[in-house]
């Protein structure tokens, strides 16, 4: 029995080493490499409306981050169609940069100090923050008005934590009610089961309609940046340049407006 266990463990180790051991070749000119390949490989979200979302009729991914990536491709090739999108999730976006499958990732990637040690991030192209939505009829106009009221948040999101910190700072207390999905939160707000509905602003904005308003306060800002493999400064500089140019020409704002993010 012991022998068998040992054999199994050994086999597993050998297999994984064989599978994972690939030479990581660091090229001198990353841009030349991309040019030789003929296409910019980008990791994007496929299920986040406004940022990266698959059009269910055409099968194409659309959104702000898609347009941004196309602008980078245009900068490299002079042709914005020379970009190949691969759907990524929070679990796959980092590793796929490391393995070299993707050149860059534009997928609602929040820049944090810890992540900066593993990948290089471009300048921030969008700041998302937790915001609070209330019914206009309720008469709340600022965060402080919510003292003692119930706020609906999504299960297992960090929203609650940021709100708690914000409430402590404002000297008020809040009650929380957790729901699994955003649509349910909106329904609960409409039916009066909760007094306010709180998630990231970009998501909240998707639920805006005439009877609602978003309070001016923002909490726990999340900075979105484009990630590249650690040490790929050539591509990073090019991405930063592209964002600078878009910002200077006003195109970045136009893109944000186009996708309902501003």
């Amino acid at each position, binding site marked *: 029995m012991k022998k068998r266990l040992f054999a199994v463990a050994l086999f597993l180790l050998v297999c994984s080493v064989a599978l*994972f051991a690939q030479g990581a070749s660091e090229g001198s000119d990353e841009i030349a490499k991309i040019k030789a390949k003929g296409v910019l490989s980008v990791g994007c979200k496929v299920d986040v409306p406004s940022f990266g979302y698959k059009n269910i009729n055409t099968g194409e991914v659309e959104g702000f981050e898609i347009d941004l990536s196309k602008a980078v491709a245009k900068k490299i090739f002079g042709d914005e169609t020379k970009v190949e999108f691969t759907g990524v999730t929070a679990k796959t976006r980092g590793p796929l940069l490391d393995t070299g499958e993707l050149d860059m990732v534009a997928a609602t990637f929040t820049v944090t100090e810890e992540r900066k040690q*593993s990948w290089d991030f471009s300048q921030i192209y969008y700041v998302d923050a937790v915001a609070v939505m209330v019914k206009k009829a309720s008469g709340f106009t600022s965060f402080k008005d919510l003292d003692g009221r119930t706020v609906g948040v999504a299960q297992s999101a960090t929203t609650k934590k940021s709100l708690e910190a914000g409430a402590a700072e404002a000297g008020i207390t809040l009650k929380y009610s957790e*729901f699994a999905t955003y649509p349910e939160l909106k329904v609960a707000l409409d039916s009066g089961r909760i007094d306010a509905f709180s998630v990231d602003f970009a998501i909240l904005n998707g639920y805006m309609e005439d009877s609602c308003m978003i309070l001016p306060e923002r909490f726990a800002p999340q900075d979105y940046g484009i990630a590249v493999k650690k040490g790929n400064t050539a591509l990073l500089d090019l991405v930063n340049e592209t964002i600078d140019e878009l910002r200077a020409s006003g195109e970045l704002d136009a893109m944000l407006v186009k996708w309902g993010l501003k």
Partner: protein
Amino acid sequence: MFKIWMWERLFSDFGVFLRGFAVTVGVSVCALALTLVISLVVGLFRCSGNRALSAFSRGYMSFFQNTPLVVQIFFFYNVLPRLNVILSPFAVGCFGLSLYTGAFGAAVVEAAVNAVPHGQLEAATSQGFGFLRTMFHIVLPQAMKVALPPMTNQAVNLIKNSSVLAMIAGGELMYRADSWASDSAVYGPTFVVTGLLYLSLCLPLSMAARKLEKKTRHP
């Protein structure tokens, strides 16, 4: 992919894995207990001869066996709050896993009960034993021997399937390993260690199942 610093980093944060491992064990034990109850009740419904109970069990088994666990777990996670039942991912995991595994366990119980010669059931009833008494005193003790190996295999499946909780932020081994790996960019070692931890739970059970099977085949 396998550099020394990666292993150092992994072992310095090994507590993350242990906490996840503990949750996996906890969920599995709770879900397993529930699974046994469900399997027994539903399996006996099938053998009870009562048409309504039997049809209900058949419907339950057919549906839960033939839809993905992922769909079931997502359903519970998203639909129950709508009915004002807010469960933690841990509880959703327990219920989801046991309802899914119970559908397979019930089939094991049914087959095991049917493997006991029918004459014994008749003999017991002719002696004035009720259905439940016949089952618990005469049929089930014999069926146990037949049911134990496949049930152990179901337990292994349950432990493996508990990794699905990673998709609903369940805080178990798979989830913690994944999120630790994506923050630290240490993948290779993480996957190997996670695999070994699951192996350490499941392999002894699998081997026990095989031994039991051999025993029942050659008594």
